[in-house]
């Protein structure tokens, strides 16, 4: 480590300092919130508003405005707050796909939740390798019917935020990204064909590219519906 003290490549010292910096400092660098134009999410909200009394699964953390918004739409909102746990699970090399089912059951006991009308994954799926991604979809499948919609932001750029971002809704239902991180990591850039393979219970209903480089997807569940109209 002596080379760090002798003034040798300052760039290396800077890199090391950056790597050793506590997460708190990184958090302090984060900029303010950003409202994004998310047309497919708006379509989904239109559907939820019209259908009434929908059951919505939010894999992200709890936000008061989301609770208020879906409450006004008479929805039952299931807040799983499992994104961070799933990313941690994905990173644990000692855990293989054979135990994903058990871990997912612990984090997301879906059989107690019933069929969902909408599943909000936000940008979480980008942070899951294929085995965990597929395991999550298998785990959700008992709660998926022909009436289920799944919304996701899939990164189309080479780099993405180093951790899942936090998404909340404003009172008009627009999507706001909070805690916009500066640190980045390589993105898997899952192509649509891969998504189809990983999500056999869903079909791509609609996809559109957003200004922030996210491909916004609206998936529709396959099979018979659970809603009687």
């Amino acid at each position, binding site marked *: 480590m002596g080379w760090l003290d002798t003034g040798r490549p300052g760039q290396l010292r800077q890199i090391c300092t950056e790597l050793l910096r506590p997460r708190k400092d990184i958090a302090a660098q984060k900029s303010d919130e950003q409202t994004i134009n998310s*047309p*497919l999410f708006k*379509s989904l909200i*239109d*559907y939820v*508003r*019209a*259908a*009434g009394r929908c059951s919505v699964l939010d894999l992200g953390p*709890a*936000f*008061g405005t989301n*609770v*208020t918004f*879906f*409450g006004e739409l*008479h929805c*039952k*909102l*299931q*807040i*799983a*707050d499992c994104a961070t746990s799933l990313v941690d699970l994905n990173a644990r090399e000692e855990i293989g796909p054979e135990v994903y089912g058990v871990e997912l059951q612990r984090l997301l006991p879906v059989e107690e*939740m019933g069929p969902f009308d909408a599943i909000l994954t936000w940008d979480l799926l980008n942070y899951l390798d294929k085995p965990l991604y597929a395991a999550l979809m298998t785990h959700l499948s008992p709660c998926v019917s022909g009436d289920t919609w799944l919304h996701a932001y899939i990164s189309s750029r080479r780099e993405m935020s180093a951790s899942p971002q936090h998404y909340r809704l404003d009172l008009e239902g627009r999507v706001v990204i909070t805690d916009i991180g500066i640190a980045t990591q390589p993105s898997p850039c899952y192509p649509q064909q891969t998504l189809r393979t990983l999500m056999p219970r869903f079909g791509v*209903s*609609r*996809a*559109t590219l957003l200004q922030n480089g996210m491909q916004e997807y*609206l998936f*529709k569940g396959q099979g018979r519906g659970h809603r009687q109209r």
Partner: protein
Amino acid sequence: MFDQVKQNMGKWNRQGEEEETTSTTDAARPTTSRMNNQSQAPAMIGPSIRIKGDLTGEENLIIEGQVEGTIHLDKNDLTIGSNGRIKANIQAKGIIVEGQVEGDIIGKEKVIIRRTGNMRGNIVAPRVTLEDGAMFKGSIEMEPEARRGSETESTRATSNKDVSSSAATSIAAASSGKV
């Protein structure tokens, strides 16, 4: 510490209350309101108290200790203070969570999870407020019938019909690949 909790309990008693997101100091509160709070001082379970079993009563209650079992205060308000640790299903008129709760909650009027609150369970109430920073994992179901008058409901039902057709069209267009 308990003063803040008592203030919260006082808020339940105010007529025509609005969403409270900021704490009000005693000095800022009208004298009459403070007197009312004193006359309806809630019962308290202190931080060193541990209870296992069924808790029922007919007065407002603050819990700063530990309770495991069930809590029924159907006509009264319950505050789980920042030191409170609850492992129980709860039913009360109004519920404020500032501490930890593991269990299902039924609030007849309102449930508020404060920023210090950490809850795992399901909530059913006409109104639910989750402050930013609060930890919550579970389901939230607001019962609109209790929240709104029947006239408003019928108006909404009519307007929903209109929206329904347009949204169905929107999703149908989506299925055909139009963006």
